[in-house]
């Protein structure tokens, strides 16, 4: 069967678009072929910077003929209906129609045969449509034709189309079509510089070979293999090792049709710059690989470039040219790095006062303060030194303001670590500057140093709580602040470090810190209004006053109040002195404001006294005030906890845990200790793999089923303790006894967080449960006995709830 060769030859296609474009071309052409009844044997697509190519082999020469039947009017129908039928089906008379009998009568049937078309004609029809509708991420118009509407859009100007179709043994035919004035033919071109002449091609095999002779390697994988092998070889020959970089390799292979790999070098003095910065400089700006010394693991002063030509001078000029470009780049990087080292990280922090993190969540400075305080709260829970955690949180974001990070955002954190180390910070503090961003994704490493863990948790929780508080949650595929990733990060930090901490209380702390930011922001704006006397006059003052009072209500426990209260008191005094003719409502509001202020001032004074005399009283009052503050944030914390539960479920499932076991544990409710949830699910999974587990589950389910049937029947539940006096059979007594024992044992084990022991305790229920169902008839004729036995069944269910809700578990 014949093959199709298609090539779309254009100006340089962006490297990042090539792979997907090749894939799209293959998919679009083959889908369309199949839709046209042309089932092919195989297809492969390729891309170079200047061409997309596709070969589809084993396409039938013709479409199959299509036979369809069409039912017409009844025999004896009016002439108009018959004429319409003939016209629609192309029959010349009713003699050509069949007659079909069915219960409703006899009908004319037309047999329509649609002969299949030649595949080459089908191709000539579908290919231009595919070219015109090709899904480039960005496309453009060009040339004289772009002056008229409807001109072709392509990723860059399209110059030639090759489209041939035919058998291996014969001279193939050109698929005749044209797009925007470009006629499909069988002429393509070789390498832009080394073999630019036209080449006539017949089919894929000679196409690929002729291109190769014209210095074009068609297959991107082949180009990658060449670059990778040659680069490794070049490094190895000098006793070095290539620093492998798949992403860069993909990109570089999309920038050349004929890869020529060469090695250049730079002055060894630049090796004083951190390796990661050298690599970022050389990779991002110059698309070159770096090379390391296998003995030290450090970079050497070499780089590997990939040119697109075999230069007539052997590449000397090219290597020298690249070295000339890399030198000033490294010189800049070195200058940035050395400049950065001259300023201590903490001295950069004041600048964060001017940088807004998020309009509603305040400045970066406010955010850093919150993270510092939260990290200090979390530190003892994760075994970190409080002072170190605070210090690390204090410095961790400072590298964002350094020159190197400004130039290469991907080394943020890492530079913080270098700079912290350089200014003599503690090792853990320096490490946390880098590691507090981790884990960045499911594959990223989870930090283990407690200082890093504390700051990483504080950073992520601050982000999550903040965006939840201003109601910017992820929806569907939209998650612009990467909140799902942050939540997964928190989960992994806790689970993989086996940390015991209440997530709910950490979230609560964080929300209080955010509340403080909100209050301070409001206080700032109120204070500046008061200072400028720019508050509204007359009736409009009512709203202003209401805002001020609301502010006092919300933030009376905060330290931002005294200053505001004092300036408000000043404003009130002034207003009463000059405002003789002000309207009644305004003066009334001023009076109300005065009352609130006097309350606030008194409270501040009293707080100071209590703090001196009875600090524990003040602490209790602060707790009240905190609860009051949190009441302004609705269900933020509950919603966020539910979000964590969802992410945890996803995470556990992705790790292979059964989703029903996860549900069974979550159904217990009030689970905010992530580690306990994980351990329960693990223990439950193991238990259910054992025979005891399986049988107990079966018994529990049987009990649940009977209960739910009888509960429905009686329209009541069977809660409450069974009456021991009503037990008549030994199996009943044995079960009751076992339940009592198991409940106690399991609860004790759960209290010790020994879920394996709790499960073993559960296993003891199995024999009495089995024996009970064997020997005891639940629906006894005596209603009292029946009720009692149902209550006993209910006890089985409640006993198992010590570890999980068994009813959620599937068989």
């Amino acid at each position, binding site marked *: 069967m014949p093959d199709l060769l298609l090539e779309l030859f254009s*100006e*340089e296609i*962006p*490297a*990042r678009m090539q792979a997907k474009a090749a894939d799209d071309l293959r998919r679009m052409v083959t889908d369309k072929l199949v839709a046209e009844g042309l089932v092919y044997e195989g297809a492969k697509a390729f891309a170079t*910077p200047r061409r997309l190519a596709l070969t589809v082999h084993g396409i039938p020469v013709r479409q199959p003929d299509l036979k369809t039947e069409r039912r017409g009017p009844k025999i004896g129908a009016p002439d108009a209906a018959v004429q319409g039928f003939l016209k629609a089906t192309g029959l010349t008379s009713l003699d050509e129609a069949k007659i079909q009998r069915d219960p409703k009568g006899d009908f004319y049937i037309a047999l329509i045969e649609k002969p299949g078309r030649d595949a080459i004609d089908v191709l000539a029809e579908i290919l231009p449509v595919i070219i015109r509708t090709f899904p480039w991420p*960005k*496309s*453009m*118009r*060009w*040339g*004289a*034709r*772009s*002056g*008229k509407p409807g001109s072709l859009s392509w*990723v*860059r*100007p399209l*110059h030639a189309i090759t489209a041939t179709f035919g058998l291996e043994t014969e001279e193939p035919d050109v698929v005749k079509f044209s797009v925007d004035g470009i006629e499909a033919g069988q002429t393509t071109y070789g390498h832009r*510089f080394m073999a630019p002449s036209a080449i006539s091609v017949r089919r894929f095999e000679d196409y690929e070979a002729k291109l190769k002779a014209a210095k074009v390697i068609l297959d991107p994988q082949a180009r990658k293999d060449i670059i990778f092998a040659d680069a490794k070889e070049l490094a190895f020959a000098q006793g070095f090792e290539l620093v492998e970089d798949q992403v860069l390799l993909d990109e570089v292979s999309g*920038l*050349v049709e004929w890869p020529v790999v060469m090695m250049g070098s730079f002055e060894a003095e630049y090796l004083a710059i951190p390796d990661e910065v050298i690599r970022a400089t050389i990779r991002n700006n*110059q*698309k*070159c690989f770096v090379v390391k010394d296998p003995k030290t693991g450090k970079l050497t002063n070499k780089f590997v*470039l990939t*040119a*697109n*030509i075999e*230069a*007539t*001078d052997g590449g000397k*000029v*090219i290597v*020298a*040219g*690249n070295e*000339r*470009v*890399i030198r*000033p780049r490294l010189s800049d990087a070195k200058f940035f790095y050395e400049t950065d080292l001259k300023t201590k990280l903490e001295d950069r922090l004041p600048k964060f006062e001017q940088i807004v993190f998020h309009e509603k969540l305040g400045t970066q400075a406010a955010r850093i303060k919150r993270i510092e305080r939260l990290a200090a709260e979390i530190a003892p829970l994760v075994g970190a030194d409080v002072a170190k955690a605070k210090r690390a949180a204090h410095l961790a974001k400072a590298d964002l303001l350094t020159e190197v990070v400004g130039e290469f955002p991907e080394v943020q954190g890492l530079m913080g670590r270098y700079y912290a180390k350089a200014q003599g910070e503690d090792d853990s503090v320096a490490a946390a500057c880098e590691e507090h961003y981790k884990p960045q994704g499911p594959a990223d490493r989870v930090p283990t140093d407690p200082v890093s863990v504390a700051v990483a948790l504080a950073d992520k929780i601050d982000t999550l709580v903040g965006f939840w508080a201003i109601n910017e949650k992820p929806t569907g595929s939209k998650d612009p602040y990467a909140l799902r990733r942050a939540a997964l990060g928190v989960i992994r930090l806790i689970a993989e470090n086996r940390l015991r901490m209440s997530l709910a209380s950490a979230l609560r702390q964080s929300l209080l810190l955010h509340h403080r930011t909100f209050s301070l922001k409001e206080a700032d704006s109120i204070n500046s209004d008061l200072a400028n006397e720019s508050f509204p006059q007359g009736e409009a003052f009512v709203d202003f006053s209401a805002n001020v009072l609301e502010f006092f209500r919300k933030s009376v426990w905060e330290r931002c109040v005294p200053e505001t209260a004092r300036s408000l008191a000043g404003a009130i005094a002034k207003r009463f002195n000059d405002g003789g003719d002000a309207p009644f409502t305004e003066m009334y509001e001023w009076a109300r404001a005065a009352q609130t202020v006097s309350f606030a001032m008194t409270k501040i004074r009293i707080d100071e006294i209590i703090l001196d005399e009875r600090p524990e009283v003040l602490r209790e009052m602060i707790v009240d005030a905190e609860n009051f503050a949190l009441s302004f944030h609705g269900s933020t914390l509950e919603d966020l906890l539910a979000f964590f539960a969802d992410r945890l479920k996803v995470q556990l499932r992705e790790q292979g845990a059964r989703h029903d076991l996860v549900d069974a544990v979550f159904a217990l409710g009030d689970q905010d200790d992530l580690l306990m949830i994980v351990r329960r699910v693990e223990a439950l999974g193991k238990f259910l793999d054992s025979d005891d587990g399986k049988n107990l589950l079966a018994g529990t389910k049987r009990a649940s089923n009977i209960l739910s049937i009888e509960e429905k029947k009686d329209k009541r539940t069977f809660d409450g303790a069974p009456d021991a006096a009503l037990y008549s059979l030994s199996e009943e007594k044995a079960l009751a006894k076992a339940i009592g024992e198991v409940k106690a044992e399991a609860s004790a084990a759960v209290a010790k967080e020994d879920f394996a022991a709790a499960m073993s305790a559960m296993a003891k229920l199995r024999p009495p449960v089995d024996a009970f169902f064997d020997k005891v008839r639940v629906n006894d004729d005596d209603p009292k006995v029946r009720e009692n036995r149902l209550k006993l069944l209910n006890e089985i269910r409640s006993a198992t709830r010590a570890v999980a809700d068994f009813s959620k578990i599937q068989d």
Partner: protein
Amino acid sequence: MDASLPAHMRPERSFQGFILALQRFWAEQGCVILQPYDMEMGAGTFHPATTLRALGPKPWNAAYVQPSRRPKDGRYGENPNRMQHYYQFQVIMKPSPPNLQELYLKSLAAIGIDSAVHDIRFVEDDWESPTLGAWGLGWECWCDGMEVSQFTYFQQVAGFECAPVAGELTYGLERLAMYVQGVDRVYDLNFNGREGDAKVTYGDVFLQAEQEYSRHNFEYADTAMLFEQFKMAEAACRKYLDAGWREGGNRKQHLLALPAYDQCIKASHVFNLLDARGVISVTERQSYIFRVRELAKACGEAWIHTEAGGAA
């Protein structure tokens, strides 16, 4: 390269010879060789010969040198290749000819860059000018890993679709000349191609200017005056735009598009100076860019109602 040139006129010896070689090459391709526009601007694209002429149906082929002022890039003459004033060589061809890439490569050959020994590459670079309301697709052109030119197919300018599309080439002259002359510091470029006492370097011509303008741009530029100038240029631009419309028969015409656009160029440069002085906050910055873009769009609209803009 023209072998008959005397040594001091050769592009690899002389900065001015280099410019002349480019001008001559593009003149031979049918471009009109313009002189620089007589206003301060951030890039050759701002020249009305590009911004405005890119709009409308009429063919247009031009090439010119444009001094480009980027106040923020001043380094007091201390950086080897960063300056607040440098030259761009700009080519615009509308509609873009089918062999524009080949012409570009030939132009490199004309200034001494041989594609048999140099690695020349077209690397994706989508161009966008927020102040001009313009965008296009194309590449940055690399020579041995160094970006030497921008190559853009204009798709939209001043908020209007380009029909037909113009091809635009921008050569960074100093950088290319440094490469061709083999010097690492821009001030060491041989300007006139002479040697010994007769030699004039780029530094002789521009170093003092770089130092003085860096002081001006970062320290002394009168911000109160500049804020005022921005407002005045914006107001004048609006005024000329409003005054220029004529309703004649069933079509609208504009009679003052070019003078109005001058004020848009002025506003843009004043904004760049204010930005360099650090007196524009991040949020204000966006709003200034928006204001200039609105002017550019209105000028573009006026232009397409002029004769050269294709209205007649």
